[in-house]
């Protein structure tokens, strides 16, 4: 059974997504439960792999359509064009993150999005989005990766357009679709360059045969930049505030999660192909530059926003900078030939990947709390908000936990990953650490502004509506995970992060 898990992770959400409209016509409650159960099943399946993949270091291969799907790779790529799937330590880390958070965001949205005839579309697209993420994470050939990237992009842009409080989402969804289509077109061009030379889409095979031609290097740029654009790296970031701010709150969290899945693709391609054709140093330096630029521009832009969701969206840009900085330092020294990678490069990568997980948690929680604020005040304007904490202490508390975590305040999870990044990057260049700490201070300043504006001051004119139980439950679980990781980071680093970094570094 467990050998079929790779294909089940994609097949279950895809099949359920096609069944949901029919189930929704019969009974809406059963439809909502079915979608939730599908996400729970893939979440449990991903947890079942921890023992084999993370502890026993086993790698799962799967060739869809082959008589013996798990053995084909060992026989030497008899059929080079097949849907090739692979789960290793690096992909499993992101699979666990994606399934767990998709489930928690789904719990939130199941009661946050009001029940009407359009919720059928919402549920179907949400499950398609999960399928897109899973497909990207386990794809071992570039074309399959591209197909699932498209599934993720199309379902995301449709969900961004999902109307809730305001009338602008269709424009935001159109903008997101436009950006995604530019990105995926260039990505397809990169795939074409490689296929034209080597006649295969398989990532492992391409790694073996690539010989560092100019066309290889052009292909790497064409593969990496679209993913960087989808992550919101400065200067290709302006779609992020426009899109995140207009989408419904749980969808902002999901689109952010989708961006982190694109970051997975970015890292995987950079390490697999970049190291192989001897451009890892150049790519590492570019990652560091993009990281610093994203951190600084993102946080300074966030500080002056008065729209709560745009402010949070600019912070999403800023936080991607930390991840690029950590992993970029590791990438730039991985082929240096001295002890740099062992001394600080690997630690920086651990910090970068740990920050991906932490960021997904607290950023998701922040977007969820912003949804409650916006729903209460009927506006995103911080100038109009005041005093919500007088009536809604629960939202104030969870917002404070997430805000302190993103600002890197101990003892929360953001502090731990930032500390690892600061300490390791300091060996590479102390100036980078100073910039990172300065950005963290500005992050705290801007979230103090949000807390002061939305939660303190005079009580609001009317009392907020009591939040449904699943909305509260999902936020409580996220808060508990944030605090628990902050207090006991060693376990998750040893079990999940370090094996993932080893797998990434030795691709």
């Amino acid at each position: 059974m467990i050998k079929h898990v790779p294909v089940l992770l994609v097949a279950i959400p895809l099949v359920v997504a096609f069944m949901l409209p029919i189930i929704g016509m019969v009974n809406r409650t059963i439809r909502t439960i079915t979608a939730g159960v599908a996400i729970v099943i893939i979440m449990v399946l991903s947890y079942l792999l921890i023992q084999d993949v993370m502890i026993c270091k086993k790698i799962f291969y799967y060739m869809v359509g082959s008589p013996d799907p798990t053995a084909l790779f060992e026989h030497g790529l008899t059929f080079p064009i097949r849907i090739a799937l692979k789960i290793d330590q690096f992909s499993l880390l992101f699979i666990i993150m994606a399934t767990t958070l998709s489930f928690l965001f789904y719990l939130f949205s199941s009661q946050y999005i009001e029940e009407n005839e359009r919720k059928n579309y919402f549920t179907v697209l949400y499950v398609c989005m999960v399928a897109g993420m899973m497909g990207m994470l386990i794809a071992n050939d570039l074309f399959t990766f591209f197909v699932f990237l498209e599934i993720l992009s199309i379902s995301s842009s449709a969900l961004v357009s999902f109307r809730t409080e305001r009338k602008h989402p269709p424009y935001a969804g159109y903008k997101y679709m436009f950006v995604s289509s530019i990105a995926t077109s260039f990505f397809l061009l990169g795939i074409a360059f490689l296929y034209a030379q080597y006649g295969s889409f398989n990532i492992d095979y391409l790694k073996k045969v690539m010989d560092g031609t100019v066309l290889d290097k052009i292909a790497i740029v064409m593969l990496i930049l679209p993913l960087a654009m989808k992550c919101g790296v400065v200067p290709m970031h302006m779609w992020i505030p426009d899109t995140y701010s207009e989408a419904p709150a749980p969808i902002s969290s999901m689109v952010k999660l989708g961006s982190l899945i694109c970051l997975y693709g970015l890292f995987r391609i950079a390490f697999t192909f970049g190291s192989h054709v001897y451009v890892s140093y150049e790519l590492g330096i570019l990652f560091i530059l993009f990281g610093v630029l994203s951190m600084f521009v993102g946080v300074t832009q966030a500080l002056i926003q008065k729209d709560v969701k745009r402010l949070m969206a600019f912070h999403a840009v800023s936080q991607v900078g930390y991840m690029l900085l950590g992993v970029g330092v590791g990438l730039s020294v991985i082929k240096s030939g001295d002890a740099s990678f062992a001394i600080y490069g690997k630690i920086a990568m651990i910090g970068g990947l740990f920050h991906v997980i932490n960021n997904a948690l607290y950023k998701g929680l922040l977007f969820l709390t912003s949804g409650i604020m916006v729903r209460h005040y009927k506006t995103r304007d911080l100038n109009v908000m005041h005093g919500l904490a007088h009536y809604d202490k629960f939202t104030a508390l969870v917002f404070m936990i997430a805000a302190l975590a993103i600002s890197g305040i101990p003892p929360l999870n953001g502090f731990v990953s930032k500390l690892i990044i600061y300490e390791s990057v300091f060996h590479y260049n102390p100036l980078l650490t100073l910039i990172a700490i300065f950005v963290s201070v500005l992050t705290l300043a801007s979230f103090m502004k949000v807390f002061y504006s939305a939660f303190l001051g005079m009580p609001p004119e009317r009392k907020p509506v009591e939040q449904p139980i699943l909305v509260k439950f999902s936020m409580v679980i996220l808060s508990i995970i944030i605090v628990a990781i902050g207090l006991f980071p060693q376990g998750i680093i040893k079990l999940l992060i370090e094996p993932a970094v080893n797998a990434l570094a030795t691709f």
Partner: protein
Amino acid sequence: MHEFELEYLNWIPLLWVCVFLIIMVLFIIIGKIFFRDDFDEMSEQGLPFYSGTSNKMLQLITASNLYWGFKHTLQSYFNSLNRLFISNLGDFIQWFIIIVAIMLLIITGALM
């Protein structure tokens, strides 16, 4: 492969929790000693005091008022950012093409 040393991470969270609890206890003790016994939060004493205006909305310092010095000092930086990223769809193409060109020059070694 070098083993990740947890000692490298100088982070003892339980110590921080203990420090936090000690500060809380000290705060409560100091409060009991020095704070007035006749303070009643539910009476007028608990209301905030605003000077200068009786208009409740004007008594609020809004989000736009915060960090005005920072914004004022960096006005030229923000103006140039606004000019560079006006968020038109054409902007995305423009920046994407520029970055593709720069990256191609660096990665293919054309600048060497």
